[in-house]
């Protein structure tokens, strides 16, 4: 990852230096540093990586437990009409399940059937949570990981765009991780 990609830095990406499943031990290590020490370490890393790039970052977000710090810099000499962050990146926000294509969103397999999920439902990785119908084809909306449905953003039968957020979900990870 290059420093210029910093705006989308996730905590896991920054500190998962050893293995993909090593989140627990890193967290534990961080905890041992104490809050102050951990924050210092975290921010120093971010600052160093930001300086390493040929461009200044536009936005840096550091999330740490319940605390987060976000700093946004003005685009150097950027005129009016600047593009907002591309939607390609928006739809990558891990906390939202988005429409895979343009169509009509349905919460149930057919009219009258019970909805796939309600707010609070805990779903397993790969479980269907809704349908987007396009050109008479039913496209399943599924989760990538075990998660809890926090919010349902679109009403049954509503038209949705490509990449439009449908659900807010919260991943449920093994104990010890957050």
């Amino acid at each position: 990852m290059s420093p210029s990609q910093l705006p989308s830095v996730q905590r896991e990406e920054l500190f998962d230096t050893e293995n993909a499943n090593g989140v627990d031990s890193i967290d534990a290590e961080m905890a041992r540093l104490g809050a102050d020490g951990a924050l210092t370490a975290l921010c120093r890393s971010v600052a160093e990586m930001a300086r390493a790039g040929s461009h200044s970052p536009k936005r840096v977000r550091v999330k740490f437990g319940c605390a987060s710090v976000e700093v946004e810099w003005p685009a150097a000499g950027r005129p009016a009409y600047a593009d907002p962050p591309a939607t390609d990146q928006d739809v990558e926000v891990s906390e939202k399940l988005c429409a895979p294509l343009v169509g009509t969103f349905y919460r149930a397999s057919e009219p009258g059937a019970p909805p796939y999920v309600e707010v609070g439902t805990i779903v397993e990785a790969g479980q269907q949570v809704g349908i987007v119908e396009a050109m008479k084809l039913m496209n399943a909306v599924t989760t990538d990981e075990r998660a809890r449905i926090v919010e349902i953003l679109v009403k049954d039968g509503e038209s949705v765009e490509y990449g439009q957020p449908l659900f807010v979900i919260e991943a449920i990870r093994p104990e010890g991780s957050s």
Partner: protein
Amino acid sequence: MTSVLVEPAERGQRPVFDTVLVANRGEIALRVVRSCQEMGIRTVVVYSTADSRSAAVLAADEAVRIGPAAPRQSYLYAPPIIEAARATGAQAVHPGYGFLSEDPDFAEICARNGLVFIGPEPSAMRQLGDKSTARKIMTDAGLPVLPGTIDPVGNVGDLVNAANKIGLPLIIKAAAGGGGNGMAVVRDWADLVPKFRSTRSVARSVFGDERVYIERYLENTRHIEVQILADQHGNVVALGERDCSVQRRHQKLIEESPAARISPEIVDRLRELAVLGAREVGYTGAGTFEFLVQGEEIAFIEVNSRIQVEHPVTEMLTGVDLVREQVLIAAGRELSLRQQDVRSNGAAIECRVNAEDPDNGFVPRPGELLEFLPPGGPGIRVDTSAYAGWRIPAEYDSLVAKVIAWAPDRERALARMNRALREFRISGERVRTTRDALRAIIADPVFQEARHTTSFLEPQGP
């Protein structure tokens, strides 16, 4: 926000479409939105994630995101477009140019889904889209075509036979090709078979159709095209010619009308042939017949069954809004313009300001526009979807702005274009444009005296 105006010209007439979906991007999407809004028609623009803040999206009444930047998953992909039309209540689809505009399958999908495709009938598009078929039909209609094979050349034996009859130089063209792709010029007998094989191979991989045909290649020709409009009631009108001889990589860079130093007799003949050809295939909508002209010799090349990039040249001369006419024709209206009503006034020229590096074979050089101040004032029209702060996407073609200059005569139109290009402030990090190359062409005595041909920018030939 919807237009507060009822389209005045339609008052008391049965309504045209309530909503039109624009299945394109960039300046042509904005162009279509403009005409529709002037007609009191609601517009829906579909867009990929790379075009979220495009000027067309900003100007449209509604916009639907249909997919990621890759054209195959957005602008070339019918299902989300049809779905967007359904969801927004559109009754018709305007395909612009490029993408799905000349795809008869898409036109049929529209029809099957109860949508009016703003373009010719799929059958006409299918016939004209295949170069071999188009050659056959137009030959039957009495249009002159260059000596060549009517049927595709299937093997080396046929190739050599045909080539012997035609003579050198000749050009090998993919039947399914277009836009300057899938063609090779043969000047030396030794190149004949290798170029035949490589063109077939390219055609197979790019178009999924390996059929090629060969025809005489004319050097130092002028590329002249005729704009036509044809309604569903058998009326065909030729609106005038455009000279598109200034090309790079077989793609047009400058277009103008009238065609300078082409005799009125030839121009009249081209117009007649275009009308003849349009009647032969039962053409409807706006279309362009392309010809090569060398001295008194005329040869039909192909038909573009859609609106052209360079259509504003004709609009400036005639005052006719071609996109509006497309919409009216698709709605079943009879053409209000008859051939004898067509008036053409003065001279107009269009320059394509592309994000390309003229010093390096016109390779695309997109990026973020920091400075973008298009020209204005008398006789200048600019069609663009760019603005300062907008990032030209790398995924699509490199056209940034079309500058069109009108004046009472060609010399003043060129002077005006030179002024306009000079005034055009456009720059950005890593962005390079054709602006200065265009100015150099405009100032070139060869062009000023209209002694240019299609090989003007590529003196060695393609």
